[in-house]
């Protein structure tokens, strides 16, 4: 029997797509190679990591890759297509000509530079949302899974939180606190917390029935120590997988918020902001949306591929569950 919406997995693609056949290994007898070897042998893990590292490198080395200020407005060089030449006066008053690789937007800002710097915001948001929502969800899940009296109250609240579609919840939260990087991170992290809590709680509930936990209780081990020594280690592999998927959907959600105009302030170079800026001129300059869109897609794809690969190698139980 199913309880309310509660028994539904979240709307992260990972939970919905877990392949029930993926984890079944027909050859049980052979000793398994070490975890690092198995990860290195997984194509989607390796490909995902390489792509993520390339994008991270682009963000970190942004000032080296492009000398153009991503926020500098240039009224003379507005709305240029990719590869067009613009001329402007530099600080010394000299007239310089240069080619804009990806064109400029309606304020004359260099799209290439904005795209390169945009990688920073995407990755920061993705990583911070994943870390905070997993940390908070882990704590709530451990405590509520272990203390029965707390459990029903916490889980009813989580059910309610999960019934609100995450984009709507995030939009509403940002609108209440005003647009800033921190507000966006908090607004995206909150809808993810219940999914982590559910995952952790289900692990706690199954682990606390194990004989070694019973043994620990019977010799008088204090509860915090049981949680830390016996329960916590069992949550690590599934949480790494979950964190990766959260990272991917957070990057996507940040871009959506920025695109809708309710995210990070518009002058900040983010892929969503470049696309929002490009909406008005889309028919003439479609690359203003298509280029950052391609980078965004590639990044999310890389993160999701890493997640799929990690799920298959680290956590066969999770892939069998759905």
């Amino acid at each position, binding site marked *: 029997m199913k309880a309310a*919406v509660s028994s539904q997995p979240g709307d992260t693609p990972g939970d919905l*797509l877990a392949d029930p*056949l993926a984890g079944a290994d027909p050859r049980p007898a052979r000793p398994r190679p070490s975890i690092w070897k198995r990860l290195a042998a997984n194509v989607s893990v390796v490909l995902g990591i390489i792509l993520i590292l390339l994008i991270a490198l682009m963000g970190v080395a942004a000032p080296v890759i492009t000398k153009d200020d991503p926020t500098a407005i240039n009224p003379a060089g507005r709305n240029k297509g990719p590869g067009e030449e613009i001329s402007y006066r530099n600080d010394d008053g000299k007239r310089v000509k240069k080619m804009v690789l990806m064109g400029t937007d309606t304020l004359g800002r260099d799209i290439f530079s904005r795209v390169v710097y945009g990688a920073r915001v995407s990755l920061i948001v993705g990583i911070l949302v994943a870390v905070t929502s997993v940390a908070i969800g882990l704590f709530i899940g451990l405590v509520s899974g272990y203390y029965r009296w707390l459990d029903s109250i916490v889980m009813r609240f989580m059910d309610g939180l999960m*019934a609100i579609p*995450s984009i*709507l919840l995030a939009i509403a939260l940002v609108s209440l606190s005003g647009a800033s990087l921190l507000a966006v991170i908090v607004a995206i992290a909150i809808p993810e917390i219940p999914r982590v809590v559910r995952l952790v709680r289900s692990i706690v509930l199954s682990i606390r029935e194990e004989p070694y936990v019973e043994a620990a209780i019977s010799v008088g081990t204090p509860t915090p120590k049981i949680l830390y020594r016996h329960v916590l280690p069992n949550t690590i592999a599934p949480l790494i997988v979950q964190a990766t998927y959260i990272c991917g959907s957070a990057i996507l959600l940040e871009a959506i918020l920025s*695109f809708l105009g309710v995210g990070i302030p518009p002058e900040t170079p983010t892929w969503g902001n470049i696309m929002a800026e490009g909406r008005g001129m889309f028919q003439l300059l479609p690359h203003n949306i298509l280029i950052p869109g391609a980078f965004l897609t*590639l990044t*999310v794809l890389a993160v*999701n591929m890493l997640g799929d690969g990690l799920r298959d190698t680290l956590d066969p139980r999770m892939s069998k569950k759905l």
Partner: protein
Amino acid sequence: MWVYVARRIAAVIPVLLVVALIVFMMLRLTPGDPAAVIGGDSATTADIAQIRENLGLDKPMFSQFFIWIGNMLTGNFGESFFYKRPVATLIIDRIEPTLALAISTITLATLLAVPLGTLAAYRQGSWIDRGVMAFSVVSFSVPVFVTGYCLIWLLSVKLGWFPVQGYQNIAAGFGGFIHRLVLPTLALGTIYIALIARMTRTSVLEVLNEDYVRTARAKGLPEMKVVLGHALRNAAVPIVTVIGVGIALLIGGVVVTESVFNIPGLGRLTVDAVLARDYPTVQAVIMLFSVAYVLVNLVIDLLYTVLDPRIRY
């Protein structure tokens, strides 16, 4: 059975109450006078006093919550200071495009994804199987608005097959209504197709290994009957479940798609209301979408018994 139905319906009430509590608390936790926040920048002192009166702000928080819920149950969602109209009529005006988009997307996705997923499972490892899998991985990473703009660029700007943006009411002509609905449906449908196709593939694959499928083949049933009558029929429960779970994706997608295609629906209303800080509208729309999500999943849960007579409660 009826006891289960009643219990299942009753279980929805606490969930909705918690949703209402969260939406209610969101506004109360922001700094400042809620009446002033709801009234907006242009509200006069008299307006604010009126709002305070309506919401019972001088009463304790507990009663305020139930006054608010009572108002909603009687169809009073408050007044939008931005549109200068009751929120309820605002929602009624905007509901048609959203419903049209949601229904066309679910229909298209189901009609396309279930056969695709079944075929992929039936021909496991073939090019069609690999194609479906690759499509589903990629679709989950392409944001709706990027798909939308790619479609506009290719099919509207370059080929001129479809209007770039806009919506036409169904009353103004069915042809034009469908014509304008094609691109948004395709954009929004992509991720949904991926989701359903993948779930169909997985569950059909599982059923195809069952003994009764082998028996059906052994007794000489035509393959068509084996796959449709035995395999797909028994794989129906997880497929329908994922369609319901995906409603959350669909609602999120509607908000974005309506902005991309300039469709005057509820999703667009949400974004406009948030940008205008029109809180009564934001609260009402969030409640409405959440109720829709919970109710769709309730219906799906109740459908299980019809789909799979083995399930007894």
